[in-house]
């Protein structure tokens, strides 16, 4: 393999040595070996799709946060930190932590007690087949697209950074993922996510360490940024958000608090089955509640290896980076800041570790999406709508085949992604389409027993449709009433100059609100379900076991509050 990779290398940002290639090759060998080892344990549906529901809180928590720590996020958010400054950390802090704590303390008991295998599975129990089917279809589409995004992003990075042929990267990564997920199911996906978590930390942590040594610490870094980019504020999170003109993102604090923290992140962290599936694999309800809270502490630390390298890039890189569209020869896009910093500090060996971390992140992203796709297809579409009564082995076999099919569809999706200039915009757009309205549907279903099946379905449909319509209007793809894209942006975001991320925030906010309003209106016009049908699914009709005898340090509530306190301290420090 080393020889093949060496032959494929052409023009590149960095050149891998033999030891680097050995490090990459060992990773591939290890994950394939783990996949074959785990195959013998993935024999029943519960094993293959839910990892036997026997993961500890720590493993489930690490897999939970790691499922969102793919290379796409690393590169994209490091690039966003270069572009927008420390404001990009909002997506790791206020845009994640409250939602993770909320999932652990409020929503997880319902998911876990109902013994559902997925989020569409919960909708099936709460709202019936229509809402569940709609959610399962949109989720299945989203996961294979996301897998394709990961595949494409990896191929682009490998081409730019290492000079590897794109088709070669796509084939090698997809075949590897297909083999180990088809073999071990969610066991394999979770094992690899935990490996990836450590790889990413130890592959990327040297960048901020050496970067801060080079700049003489945080103060020195800020001084260099101010020297390189005079008049721009890249190092404050909140103090420059009173007016949209005062910060590089064009974002008002209202968008961050209501659009990101209360809608988008809540939707993603509590209803995106890709991440929730990891927690559903926990061995008991306490582990299921603790897993997202454990994950929240690790999530809070991620800006150290993502945002800080982006800021250090502003301080130390000799060239300025640019938007991906309209790049001139010799220029680099924002999302290349992490590979550039890696090449700046890491020689043979360490470079291989960093590149392996990126490869692992991409492959774990693919594996996570493909395993979630296999579960949702098999349990939420195939079993209820195509073949209801079949032996467990049949569904396991379907899951394995579905994994392979999912990988093939992802390959097709990878080439579709080429038409989008910015990967992160694409990802955010996908979240907005499906996740924000889904959050309103799930939350209303858990907290309000009056919500009807019809209300759930029509609200979800209206929210999803409004989200897609808003996206098309603000991107000039849907001419309506003679307004330009900028005018639509101004109308929906209250700022005609709002940037992509700000547009996504408001798209989420509006689609969630639409879902909420339509759900309530339809609910008032339709007949409620009997209380007996909703036990274990709705807050007021569910007995959640109290942990009265547990010590303070064993209570999820204590750690949830601790997580929020640390979050508040971080906001004050970087205000």
């Amino acid at each position, binding site marked *: 393999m080393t020889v093949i990779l060496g032959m494929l290398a052409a023009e590149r940002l960095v050149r891998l040595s033999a*030891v680097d290639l*050995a*490090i990459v090759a*060992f*990773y591939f060998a*290890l994950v394939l070996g*783990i996949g074959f*080892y*785990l195959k013998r*344990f993935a024999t029943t549906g519960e*094993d293959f799709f839910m990892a*036997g529901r*026997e*993961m*500890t809180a720590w*493993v489930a928590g690490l897999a939970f946060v790691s499922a969102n720590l793919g290379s796409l996020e690393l590169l994209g958010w490091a690039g966003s930190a270069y572009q927008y400054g420390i404001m990009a950390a909002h997506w790791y802090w206020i845009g994640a932590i409250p939602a993770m704590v909320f999932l652990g303390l409020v929503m997880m008991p319902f998911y876990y007690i109902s013994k559902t295998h997925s989020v569409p599975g919960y909708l099936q129990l709460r709202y019936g087949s229509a809402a569940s089917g709609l959610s399962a279809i949109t989720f299945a589409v989203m996961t294979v697209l996301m897998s394709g995004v990961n595949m494409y992003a990896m191929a682009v990075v490998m081409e730019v950074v290492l000079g590897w042929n794109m088709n070669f990267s796509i084939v090698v990564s997809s075949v590897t993922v297909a083999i180990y997920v088809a073999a071990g199911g969610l*066991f394999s996906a*979770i*094992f690899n996510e*935990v*490996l990836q978590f*450590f*790889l990413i930390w*130890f592959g990327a942590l*040297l960048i901020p360490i*050496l970067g801060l*040594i*080079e700049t003489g610490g945080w103060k020195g870094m800020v001084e260099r940024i101010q020297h390189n980019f005079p008049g721009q504020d890249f190092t404050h999170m909140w103090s420059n958000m009173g007016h949209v003109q005062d910060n590089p993102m064009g974002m008002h604090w209202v968008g961050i608090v209501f659009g990101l923290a209360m809608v988008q992140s809540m939707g993603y962290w509590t209803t995106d089955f890709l991440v929730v599936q990891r927690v559903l694999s926990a*061995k008991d309800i306490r582990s299921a509640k603790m897993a997202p809270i454990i994950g929240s502490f690790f999530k809070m630390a991620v800006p150290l290896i993502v945002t800080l390298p982006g800021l250090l890039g502003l301080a*130390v890189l000799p060239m300025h980076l640019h938007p991906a569209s309209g790049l001139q020869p010799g220029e680099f896009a924002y999302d290349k800041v992490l590979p550039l910093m890696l*090449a*700046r*500090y*890491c*020689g*043979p*060996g*360490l470079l*291989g*570790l960093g590149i392996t971390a990126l490869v692992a992140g991409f492959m774990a992203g693919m594996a996570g999406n493909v395993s979630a796709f296999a579960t949702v297809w098999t349990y939420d579409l195939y079993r209820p709508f195509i073949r209801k009564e079949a032996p467990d082995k049949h569904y396991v076999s379907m899951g394995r085949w579905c994994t392979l099919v999912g990988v093939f569809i992802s390959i097709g999706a990878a080439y579709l992604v080429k038409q989008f200039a910015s990967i992160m915009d694409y990802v955010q757009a996908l979240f907005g389409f499906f996740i924000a309205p889904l959050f309103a549907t799930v939350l209303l279903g858990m907290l309000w027993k009056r919500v009807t099946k019809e209300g759930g379905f029509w609200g979800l449909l209206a929210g999803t449709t409004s989200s897609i319509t808003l996206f098309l209007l603000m991107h000039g793809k849907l001419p309506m009433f003679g307004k330009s894209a900028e005018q639509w942006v101004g109308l929906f975001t209250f700022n005609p100059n709002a940037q992509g991320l700000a547009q996504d925030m408001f798209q989420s906010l509006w689609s969630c609100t639409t879902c909420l309003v339509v759900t309530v209106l339809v609910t008032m016009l339709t007949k409620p379900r009997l209380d007996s049908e909703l036990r274990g699914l709705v807050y007021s009709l569910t007995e959640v076991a109290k942990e009265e005898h547990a010590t303070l340090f064993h209570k999820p509530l204590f750690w949830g509050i601790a997580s929020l306190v640390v979050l508040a301290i971080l906001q004050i420090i970087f205000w």
Partner: protein
Amino acid sequence: MSEKHHIIPVWFFVGVLFLVYGVLIFATGLLEWSDPPNTVLAELRAPVWWGALLIILGAVYCTAFRPGRREN
């Protein structure tokens, strides 16, 4: 980690990964000691101490979570 299946804990595989990578990176750092690569701050010999850190962590994880170890 696994009560029903007796699967080797994932932490053991993490240890193997750290140990192998630590040895490779540490050895590379020693080999290039007199002729460091053309990177910023190469004089700090980052591969040597980073590789050593990985070896220590890898050894701890491999020992603590080795297959067949009895848990009480």
